[in-house]
């Protein structure tokens, strides 16, 4: 199975490490679970230990933690106003978790948990669920104003409302698929180009000469993927802020 080496999908296979089964449902500790825990450990460990000295004049690493904090704080304040700041821990956790997961996924042989649709979908449902629960809890049926944009002529209302409802329902899908597809496609592309390098390299001198091109491509793509890894975490957080804005100020758009 020589083709296995360059099988670009192999990296997404979930393998059991410790099989656990409860009530007939498979809850095994898998490589995906391992990297979820690793993401937790790396992200929480970094934030915890870089701030443990509580220096008045921050070092570089403490600055990174503080900058992330202030970055998300200003993003949320701009996106959802000062009333939205009660969701700060949630947005910050989401951003740091996704960012760390994406970045860990860039390490060779590491599993990318955000390339699993169920993971991104669960995070998206968590966001939309929070919007719905908080929206109805805080505003009751007034939350339904979120589907009624102000200043729309009455005759267009049924059409606009149905569009709004469809757009609202598609939010968890777009939110999860965007992150999932970006990470998946990026890793597959990387793997395919890196696979070309290996395959061409076995074809003798001409092959090695030809392998330079995919190698350059792989290096460039790696840089791009780091950008995408950050950007997708950022986009997820920004959209979360926007959706939370609906929960805080329904009909206020």
């Amino acid at each position, binding site marked *: *199975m020589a083709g296995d080496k360059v099988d670009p999908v192999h990296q997404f296979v*979930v393998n059991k490490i410790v099989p656990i089964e409860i009530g007939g449902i*498979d809850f095994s*500790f898998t490589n995906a679970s391992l990297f979820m825990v690793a993401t937790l450990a790396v992200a929480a460990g970094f934030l915890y230990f870089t701030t443990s000295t509580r220096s008045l004049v921050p070092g570089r690493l403490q600055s990174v933690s503080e900058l992330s904090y202030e970055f998300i704080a200003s993003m949320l304040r701009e996106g959802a106003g000062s009333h939205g700041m009660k969701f700060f821990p949630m947005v910050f956790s989401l951003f*740091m978790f996704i960012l760390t997961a994406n970045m860990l996924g860039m390490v060779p042989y590491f599993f990318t948990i955000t390339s699993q649709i169920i993971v991104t979908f669960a995070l998206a449902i968590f966001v939309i669920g929070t919007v719905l629960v908080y929206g109805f809890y805080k505003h009751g049926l007034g939350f339904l104003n979120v589907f009624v944009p102000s200043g729309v002529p009455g005759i267009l209302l049924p059409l606009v409302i149905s569009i709004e409802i469809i757009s609202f329902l598609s939010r968890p899908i777009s939110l999860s698929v965007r992150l999932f597809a970006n990470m998946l496609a990026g890793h597959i592309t990387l793997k395919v180009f890196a696979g070309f390098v290996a395959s061409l390299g076995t074809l003798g001198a001409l092959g090695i000469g030809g392998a330079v091109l995919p190698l350059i491509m792989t290096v460039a793509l790696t840089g791009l993927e780091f950008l995408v890894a950050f950007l997708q975490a950022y986009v997820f957080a920004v959209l979360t802020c926007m959706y939370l804005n609906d929960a805080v100020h329904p009909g206020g758009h």
Partner: protein
Amino acid sequence: MFVTAAYAQSTTTEGAETHDAAAGEVHTETGVAHEGGHGSGVFPPFDSSTFASQLLWLAISFGLFYLLMSKVVMPRIGSILETRHDTIARDLDDAARSKAEADAAVAAYEQELATAKAKGNVIASTAREAAKAKAAADRTAVETSLNDKISAAEARIADIKAKALADVGSIAEETATAVVEQLIGGKVTKAEIASAVKASAK
């Protein structure tokens, strides 16, 4: 259930699509048996047999992460930032107060300098006035004594002159008497001589 990790792209078509074909195969590339879910032929991210486990572990790890963030890390970073903000504000206040103190000290210094200057001027002008007055007094005293001496000297001169003039009369009378005697050989009275001298002296 042992399954291959190679999928539609690399295995035979039936191996990719059916569970049975994949079952029992060993991942030959690494020699490690990979355990997959029931839907081994599915594109792995869409393999629903792993969903329950992923959801559970995501809930555990993300839940723990959320707890750590909201209870430990974020309050800590928040307090660091707040402390820094307060410290900077306090330092700025201190700086402003120190500046005000420095300004007050400069103002006080300048005021004292001005007072001292004014005082110096007063002392100097007083001394000058006193010196002037003393000089004037001395001059007047000297002038007075000089005037006294001058007038005394003038008085003496006048006295001497008068005496001398008085002597001149008698000398003239005697001379005249002698001259008359020599010239005319006669005697003239003293009274006549005197009146003649007097008349010629006029």
